[in-house]
């Protein structure tokens, strides 16, 4: 009989022990305000939110759960009511989103720019392009490989917009879609010695490890505007509207904006605050 205790009892004992562990200690704190922010991989993986949010959490006592996805998916999550607030970068899609009544109080938060990057040797000769359209045309003509996000993110939306300037994207063997985030896509471009479109924040954050150089930048159409939008509480009653509005207010306040302007990599500002005029500007 003694044998039984050692072997068979292991199962239920193990089960019971684990069930006792199961209650979710964090769920018990849900009474403490906790909001969900869906945002792009560029704001999260660059380290910006990790740097900003503790200031907000301390000041307002509201915990922010960050879900980093592409802008397309962030808009979708907001539409379904799965998050309270979004920080995204695709103005055209955002306006449609607000127009459809899914979001309210859209505010611009910060801006940087997109740039075309590629192998430093620049085989497709984009560095000598006179205009954005010329650069894209050169890429197509000289058969440089272009790596696309292909994930309906803000960067991907922008990229599709740009290809319209030259009558569409490159043909098949010269156009690769990764379906992954900006960092992963930059890495693919690096491995394939190919070109890609990236936001400056992510490029500054991870580009140092990669053999990629800016080959075209500075066109007005390459502006990259990040806005914050609160999910419409009239559509989704469970949304933590007031807490989400406090995050919106804080990010666009002089304090939040100053902190954004102070976030740098190797001395360069990754995101330029754009919500309020700051002292000395």
């Amino acid at each position, binding site marked *: 009989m003694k044998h039984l205790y050692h072997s*068979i009892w292991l199962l239920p004992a193990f089960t019971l022990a684990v069930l006792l562990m199961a209650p979710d200690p964090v769920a018990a704190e849900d009474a403490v305000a906790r909001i969900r922010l869906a945002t792009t991989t560029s704001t999260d993986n660059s380290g910006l939110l990790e740097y900003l949010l503790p200031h907000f959490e301390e000041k307002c006592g509201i915990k922010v759960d960050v879900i980093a996805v592409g802008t397309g998916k962030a808009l979708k999550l907001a539409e379904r009511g799965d998050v309270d607030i979004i920080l995204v970068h695709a103005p055209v899609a955002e306006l449609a989103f607000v127009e459809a009544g899914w979001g309210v109080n859209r505010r611009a938060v910060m801006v940087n720019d997109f740039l075309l990057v590629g192998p430093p040797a620049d085989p497709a000769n984009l560095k000598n392009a006179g205009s954005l359209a010329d650069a894209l045309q050169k890429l197509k003509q000289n058969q440089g490989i272009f790596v696309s996000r292909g994930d309906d993110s803000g960067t991907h939306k922008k990229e599709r917009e740009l290809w319209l300037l030259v009558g569409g994207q490159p043909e098949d063997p010269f156009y690769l879609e990764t379906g992954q985030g900006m*960092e*992963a896509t930059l*890495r693919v471009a690096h491995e394939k010695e190919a070109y890609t479109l990236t936001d400056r924040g992510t490029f500054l954050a991870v580009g140092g490890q990669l053999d990629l150089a800016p080959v075209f930048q500075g066109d007005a159409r390459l502006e990259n505007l990040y806005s914050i939008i609160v999910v419409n509480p009239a559509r989704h009653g469970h949304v933590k509207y007031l807490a989400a509005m406090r995050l919106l207010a804080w990010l666009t306040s002089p304090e939040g904006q100053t902190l954004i302007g102070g976030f740098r990599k190797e001395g360069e500002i990754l995101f330029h605050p754009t919500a309020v005029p700051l002292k000395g500007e």
Partner: protein
Amino acid sequence: MGLEVFEILGVSLRVSLSAVALATLVSVPTGFLLAVSSFRGKGPLVTTINTLMALPTVVVGLLVYILLSRSGPLGAFGILYTPTAMIIGQFILALPIITAITYAAVSGVDVRVRKTAETLGAGPWQATWMVLKVGRLGIIAAIFAGFGRVIAEVGSAIMVGGNIRGYTRTMTTAITLETAKGNFTLGLTLGLILLVVALAINLVVAHFLGRKT
């Protein structure tokens, strides 16, 4: 990272052990009953369960996401992007594996074990106990296989957990993130830590079994 690693490891273990414990409660009795009974359609049912072992984690993630989303049928509970949602996904992933291996283990127990027990005057419960006892190694292997499946999966955990720092970030979703950020060394280190913890759990159980044999 630093202390955060332990927090992430805690989330991983809490979620995966809970999921496996719950799946064990359902799967071991189911696998056992399947093995000792015979009925019409048993063959196709076993084939179905074996097939479900190949269920892609992202498909489970997507199904659970659709169910738990605020716009989904169970949206009112608001449990998407919580550890509970991850437990549900991993519970579903562990079910077919633990059931199928338990079924195989119990099927492999000689029918004479039960007959002998009954001849010696054992009631049905005692006879069942004997069969479970003889097949225990296979059943424990089933539970470990289930645990191995869920602690190592990333597809469902990232879709229904959201990889929220300090809340639903697990070892595997953290590895995915660190890889995306290009921190390969950190990613590999996390993978090694996960393996070491799995080894420790195996050793503890082996110790208990060792006393027996």
